[in-house]
C-alpha cells in the first residue's frame, strides 16, 4: 500500500520543530480534521440547498435565485442568516426539554457519520474497522430524535410525522444493511477505505455497480427513504401533515432539522459513491496514466495531484447523485404510507436477501471476479 501524503505526521513533526512536546502536538492536530469535516459538510449543505433551488427552478421553468451573489450562490447563506435571526418559539404546552433535545439528537449522529467518509486513501478522519456498520448504527439513532420532537411539540401533525419517520426508517434500514452486507462480503471488509480499494485498478469497469446492480438500486432506494426525500417524504408530507415533526419549530431549532436533512442527503450520496461508484477512484485510473508516462508513484507532485483528483472525483460523483435525487424530488409524486411500507417489507427486503444469497454463491463460484 502506498503511504501517500502523511499530513498528520508532517504536521506533528513541524510543530515539534517549534519545540512543542509530541503529546501536545498531537492534541493540537486532533481537532483539526474534525473541524475541517464539520465546516466542509456545512459548505456541502449550502451547495446542496443551492442545487435544490436551481434544479427545482429549472424543472418548473423558473430562474430561481439570481440576485444573491452570482447565479444566486449566496441564497442558502441568506437562508441560514434569516433562520439565525428568527425568534425561537417553544409552544406553550410543549415539553420544553424534549423539544430542545429532539433536533440535537437528529443532527449529531449525522455529523458523526462523516467520521468514516474517505476522500482519498489517507484523507479521512479515522479508518474504523467497523466503517459502514458504524454509519448504519448511527443512522438508526436519528428516528429517536424525530419521535422526540414529534411528541414534544404537542401537536397531532408533529406526532404523526414523527411516527411515520420512525416506521419508515425501521422498514428501510434492513434492506439498506443487507445491501451493504453484500458489498462487505465482496470486499472482505466493512472499512470504507478497503471497500474503495477493492474497486480500484480497473477504473470505471472495476466499480461495484457492475457487480452489484441489484444491490445498488436497493441501496439507493433505501437511502432515499432514510433521508426522507421524495418519493418517500411522508414524514413531512405538507398536504397532509403541515410539515410533520417540524411543524412547531422555528429559528435555529428548525435550522438544525433543515441542516440535518441536507447533511444526511449529501452523506447518503457520498456513501453511494463510495460503496458503488468507486469513491475517490477516477474513471481512468491515475496509476495507469502515470505508469505510461514512467512517473514513479513516490513523486511528491504526483501524490498531491492524486489526492486532489480523489477529492474532486468523490465530490463529482456525490453531486451528480445529489442532482439526480433533487431531480427525482421535483418530478415524481409521493407514495402513500401503505405503499411505502409494502415496498420496504414485501419487496425490497426479500430482493435484498436474494441478492445477498446470490452474491455469496457467486463469490464461491467466481472468487476472482467477486472477491475471494
Amino acid at each position, binding site marked *: 500500500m502506498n503511504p501517500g501524503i502523511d499530513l498528520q505526521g508532517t504536521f506533528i513533526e513541524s510543530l515539534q520543530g517549534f519545540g512543542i512536546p509530541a*503529546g501536545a502536538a*498531537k*492534541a493540537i492536530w486532533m481537532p483539526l480534521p474534525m473541524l475541517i469535516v464539520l465546516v466542509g459538510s456545512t459548505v456541502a449543505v449550502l451547495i446542496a440547498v443551492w442545487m435544490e433551488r436551481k434544479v427545482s427552478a429549472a424543472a418548473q421553468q423558473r430562474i430561481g435565485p439570481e440576485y444573491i451573489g452570482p447565479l444566486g450562490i449566496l441564497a442558502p447563506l441568506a437562508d441560514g442568516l434569516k433562520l439565525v435571526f428568527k425568534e425561537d418559539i417553544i409552544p406553550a404546552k410543549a415539553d420544553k426539554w*424534549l423539544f430542545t433535545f429532539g433536533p440535537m439528537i437528529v443532527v449529531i449522529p449525522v455529523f458523526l457519520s462523516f467520521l468514516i467518509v474517505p476522500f482519498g486513501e489517507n484523507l479521512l478522519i479515522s479508518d*474504523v*474497522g*467497523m466503517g459502514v*456498520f*458504524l454509519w*448504519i*448504527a*448511527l443512522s*438508526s*439513532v436519528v*428516528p*429517536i430524535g424525530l*419521535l*422526540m420532537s414529534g*411528541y414534544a411539540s404537542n401537536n397531532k401533525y408533529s*406526532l404523526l410525522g*414523527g*411516527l411515520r419517520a*420512525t*416506521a419508515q426508517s*425501521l422498514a428501510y*434500514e434492513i434492506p439498506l444493511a443487507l445491501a451493504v452486507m453484500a458489498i462487505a462480503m465482496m470486499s472482505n471488509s*466493512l*472499512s470504507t477505505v478497503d471497500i474503495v480499494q477493492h474497486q480500484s485498478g480497473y477504473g470505471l469497469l472495476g466499480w461495484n455497480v457492475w457487480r452489484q446492480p441489484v444491490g445498488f438500486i436497493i441501496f439507493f432506494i433505501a437511502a432515499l427513504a432514510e433521508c426522507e426525500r421524495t418519493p418517500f417524504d411522508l414524514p413531512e408530507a405538507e398536504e397532509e401533515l403541515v410539515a410533520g415533526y417540524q411543524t412547531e419549530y422555528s429559528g435555529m431549532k428548525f435550522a438544525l432539522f433543515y441542516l440535518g436533512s441536507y447533511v444526511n442527503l449529501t452523506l447518503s450520496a457520498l456513501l453511494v459513491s463510495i460503496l458503488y461508484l468507486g469513491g475517490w477512484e477516477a474513471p481512468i485510473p491515475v496509476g495507469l496514466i502515470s505508469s505510461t508516462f514512467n512517473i514513479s508513484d513516490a513523486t511528491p507532485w504526483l501524490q498531491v495531484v492524486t489526492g486532489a483528483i480523489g477529492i474532486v472525483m468523490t465530490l463529482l460523483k456525490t453531486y451528480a447523485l445529489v442532482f439526480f435525487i433533487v431531480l427525482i424530488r421535483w418530478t415524481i409524486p409521493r407514495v402513500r404510507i401503505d405503499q411505502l411500507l409494502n415496498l420496504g417489507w414485501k419487496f425490497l427486503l426479500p430482493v435484498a436477501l436474494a441478492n445477498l444469497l446470490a452474491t455469496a454463491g457467486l463469490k464461491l463460484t467466481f472468487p476472482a471476479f467477486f472477491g475471494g
Partner: protein
Amino acid sequence: MNLAEGVQIVSFGILAAAVLISALGVVLLKNVVYSAFLLGGSFISMAGLYFLLNADFVAAAQVLVYVGAINVLILFAIMLVNKQEEYVVVKGAGVRQVATALVCLGLFALLGTMVVSTPWAISSVAPAGDGSIVTIGIHFFTDFLLPFELVSVLLLIALVGAIVLARREFVPENLSPSGEDEALMLPERPREMVSSRDDK
C-alpha cells in the same frame, strides 16, 4: 500518564455517570415517555463504555440493536397505545416503593459481592480491536454454533408470535348484544366513524 490515558479516564467517568444517572431516571421518573428516552441514553452510554474497552463491533451493535431497534420500538409502542385511562394512585404506594428499594438494594449488594469476590480469569491476550468482528464471526460459526442457531430459532418464534398477535382479520361491523365478539377484539377504545359527528 499520557494523553490517551487521561482521555480514557475522563471519558470513563463521564460515561459511567451517564449510565447511572439515566438508568436511575428510567426507574424514578413518573412520565413513562421520559423513562423510555432515558433508556436510550443509558444504552448509548453503555456503547461508549464498550468503545473504551476496544470492543467496537459490540458497541456499534449495541447502538444498532438496543437504541435503533428496541428502544425505538418501545417508544413506538408507548405512543401508539390508544387507551385512555386515568392514572390512579395505588394504596400504600409508599410502603411498596420502600420494599422495592430494599429488594433492589439487596440484589445490588449480592451482585456487588459476587463481582468483587469472584476470581475472574482475565485474559492476557491483547484485545482484537479492529479485527474483533472477524474473531466474533469465527466463534459464532465454530464453537458457539449451537447457541447462535438456537437464538435465531428463538427470534423466529418471537416473529411468528408477534404476527399472530398483531393480525386481526375479524373486525365486526356491528357488535352482537351478548358480547361474544369481545374476545376477538383487542382492549382498545371503540373506533368512532368520521361521519358520526355530523349526523346528529
